[in-house]
Each structure stands twice: as C-alpha cells, then as structure tokens.
C-alpha cells in the first residue's frame, strides 16, 4: 500500500529509529494511520468489547473512555507493566505504539450510548 505523503526528514529519521528498535515487529507503514485504517483495525476489538467497544460486562466497555487513559492502559499491557493481566498483554504486543495510540483515540471518540 502506498501512503500518499512522503515522510518529512525528521519523521523519516524517527521512523528509521522506530523500525530499527521495533525488534520482532515488521510493520512497514508510515507513522500516519488513516482513520479508515484505524476503523478496520478496531473491528477486531469488538469480539470481546462489543460492537464499537460499547458492551460492558465481565470485559469492560472501552467506548467513550478518555483517550489518555486508554492509551496508557494499552501501552502498559504491551510493555508487560500491568499485573494480573490475562490476555490483553498478549494482544497489545501485536500492535505498534502508533496503532495503539490511534485505537485509543478512536474509541475515546465513540459516543457511549
């Protein structure tokens, strides 16, 4: 997939650093994640959190929660900093930090009703 905007030199350097330190992850995308792309990625979250992340139950709802909270939570899962986690760490590790940030933003902006 060709992303339309060529990264600015600064971003390119950051991108190179990110990809160098990304270790096992091999995502070749620019830091920009389109809203359509986030929406597609977010679809998989519905399987446990309900459509649009609205379903509350044993598994918490995520729609409408503050973006900063969601992002911090996701990054904590990814870095293995969340104790007593059962599955979210294993899942969060499959996404880049940029994707997790975009997902946090996406769910934060969903109307909770």
């Amino acid at each position, binding site marked *: *997939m060709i992303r339309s905007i060529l990264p600015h030199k600064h971003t390119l350097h950051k991108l190179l650093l990110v990809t160098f330190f990304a*270790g*096992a*992850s*091999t*995502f070749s*995308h620019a830091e920009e994640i*389109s809203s*359509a*792309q986030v929406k*597609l*990625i977010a*679809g*998989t*979250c*519905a*399987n*446990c*959190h*309900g*459509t649009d992340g609205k*379903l509350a*139950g*044993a*598994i918490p709802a995520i729609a409408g929660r503050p973006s900063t909270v969601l992002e911090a939570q996701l990054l904590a899962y990814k870095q293995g900093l969340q104790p*007593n986690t*059962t*599955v979210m760490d*294993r*899942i*969060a*590790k*499959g*996404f880049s930090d940029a*994707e997790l940030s975009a997902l946090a933003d996406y769910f934060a902006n969903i109307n909770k009703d």
Partner: protein
Amino acid sequence: MSDQKNTFSSSRRQLLKGLGLVSIFPAISACAATGTSKASAGRVVVIGGGFGGATAAKYIKRGNPAIDVTLVEPNKTFYTCPFSNLVLAGERQLDSIGHNYDELQQVYGVKVVHALAQDIDPVAKRVSLSDGQTLQYDKLLLSPGIDMRWNAIEGYDEAAAELAPHAWKAGPQTLILRQQLEAMEDGDTFIMSVPGNPFRCPPGPYERASLVAHYLKQHKPRSKILILDGKDNFSKQGLFTAGWQAHYGDMIEWVSLSNDGRVVRVDAARKEVETEFGTRHQGAALNIIPPQKAGFIADRAGVTDQSGWVPVNPVTFESTQVKDIYVVGDATVAAPMPKSGFAANAQGKVAASAIVASFAGITPLDPVWANTCYSLINPDYGISVADVYRVQDNQIISVEGAGGLSAADASDNIRRSEAAYAVGWYNAISQDTWGTKL
C-alpha cells in the same frame, strides 16, 4: 453491441474459468461486471448466517447502508458451537446459545431469507435456493462453515451420525449427544474420536472432554473418557493435561496417533470403533468428529481447491479462483489463523470492508486481526490462546512476540478470571455478530 460483448465475454469467462484464470483479468471481465467507476451501491448476497456471514452482512450495512444485502440462512435460530460443550455438560440449555436475525433485519436492514442455497452460477452471478427463488448478486460472500467428509472413516456416514453424533454443528446433534451422556451408567466409558488437522476449532474436542468430565465427576464419578486422536499433539495440550490431572485425576485418557489413536472404522449402532492398528474400543456414548471440508456450496461456486477448502486473497478474502466471490470462516485456507468463530467474525469484517471499498472504487486496506480462543476446563477454570495476525508478502502471518498461551502456573484467581472473560467474550461476540446477548 452490448449483447454481443456480454456473450463474448461470457464464453471467454468460461474458458478462463476452465483455466482458473478469471480473477486475473479484471479488465477483460469488466464487461460483465455491474460496477462503474463512480461510487455506487450494489447488491450483495451472503450465504451462511453464522459468525462469519452475519457479521459480514451487518458490517457491509454499517459501511454503506445503500448497499443491498440479502442473507441466506436455513435456520431461523442459529445455535453456536462455542458454549455448546456447556450444554453437553448440563450447565446450560440449548436455547441460551441460540441467536435470531431480528436485529440484523430491523436495525441494519439486512434482508434475511430462510432457505438453503443449493447452487451458484458465478458467470450469471445467480444463487439458486431450496425454495425455488434465485437471487442475483454483484458480489457474493460465502461463510458456509464445514461439511463432514462422510465415509472418510469407514462406516461413518450421515445415518451413522444420528447414532454416534459429531455435534460439530450445534443444535439437534448437541441434544443427541447430551441424551447419550445422560443415559450413561456410572462406570461407563465415553469415547471421542478426533481427526487430524485441519478441522474446525482445534481446542474444541479437548474442552468437550473437560466439560463432560465435569459432568461425569458430579453424577457418574467412576466413568471414563477415552480420546482417540489422529494427532500427536493438540492445542493448549500442556494446559489441558495439567487441568485434567488437577480436577479429574485419571478420568480422561488421551491416545495419540503414534500410540494407535487414529480411528479408521466405526460401527455406530454398536458404538464401537477400530483404530489404525486394529485395536477396538466400545463405549456407552460415542462422539465421532470426522475429517471435514468446506461447506458444499463452496464447491458449487467453484472456489474450493484440491484440498476441499477455499484459498483466498489474504487482504480482501476474495476467492483466488472466482472473482467477486468472497469467502470467510472455517471454509477458508487462512492458516495460521485458526478455524474459529472469533476468526470468522474478524474475517467477516475485513471482507465487508473490502466489498464496501470495491463498490466505491477504493483500494482495500491492510487488515490486522486478533484471535483469542477460550477453553473451559470447568466453569471456573478458563484457559486461552491468543494471536495477532497481519498480511506480509501476500500471506497471513502470526505476529512474532505477540500472542501465546495462558501461563502454565497461573493462580486459581487467574483461571477464574479467564473463565469469566470467556463468558464476557461470548456475550460480546454474539452481540457483535447477531446483536443478541444473554
């Protein structure tokens, strides 16, 4: 002029189809397509109202309500395989895992036809139904699940399944098996035959053994469970084995392929099986999970390959053999994604997005999927295996460093949490797929 063009392209399409080349020539076959370069709503027919099909229908409508979507599903109530093992254990009633199509129709505007799709003409783009109707489509999405390979095990045909059920499609089969378990006397043996890969729901048979053990431990504690396996290892094996030892002692015996576990012959009436090297076993209740293949409608559509499963484009889940037919769920070759309801739902969304994009003339996006398979060793002891998938070099790959099994040494609290999350997952995915929740 347009008539001539259509006939010509029709016969050429036949030639191309014969060579398996239809999908390579979008330009040439565009004559027969109804899409135009400007964004336009179209007609989609979805066959199969399970985790894959119902989700795809809903998400196509969410993506563009102007697209006409008709869902074909013979059952008015869909019973899920997930959690059907709890029905076998007597922990739930069958009704509690049944889902209807009200929300899809009333909220999302999906037209639902309760009939069986019997044939597909991919050239004329027509589906023939068991009630005599035909449906025209611009794009077809198949989520037909599996069909059993009858007689792959000698003596195991459709009639035999009434006596030795597979219960690998939930509903009446589940009840037949439940009745057999209820009729067992204390001390009797429950025999399960499990096939080699690939088959629907890799950890399923072992969860079944676990939950039946849970039932037997309470009501018929001297009974035994014998698993005859066509494999030498299975999903979450370490976790299951540890859980079995902790909760069921030596009630469950697992015989691997290399210990003569593969069943080659069944006498369903006598509830007796024979394995590869001539050993015979007879039980009071017999569950045969036979080798499988894609649901038959996939064959009719021309999308199956020599393996009996459906190869697909990993980005869009469009068939690699027939253009404008998308296939999701257990029927597909999507390894390393497993054949699971979770995966079918996730693939349904990706295919839906690809269909919406295609009608709008937009390039499809790169998918990412997660999958979490929960298994219950008993209602308070849950284990899981998770994974994240992406597309790389036109293949689906499992993301390294992500996913994995529940910890081997997890506390009782974690096991209990996972069991609770399994219920939460079931509610969420049911709501996401059909709009129904418990």
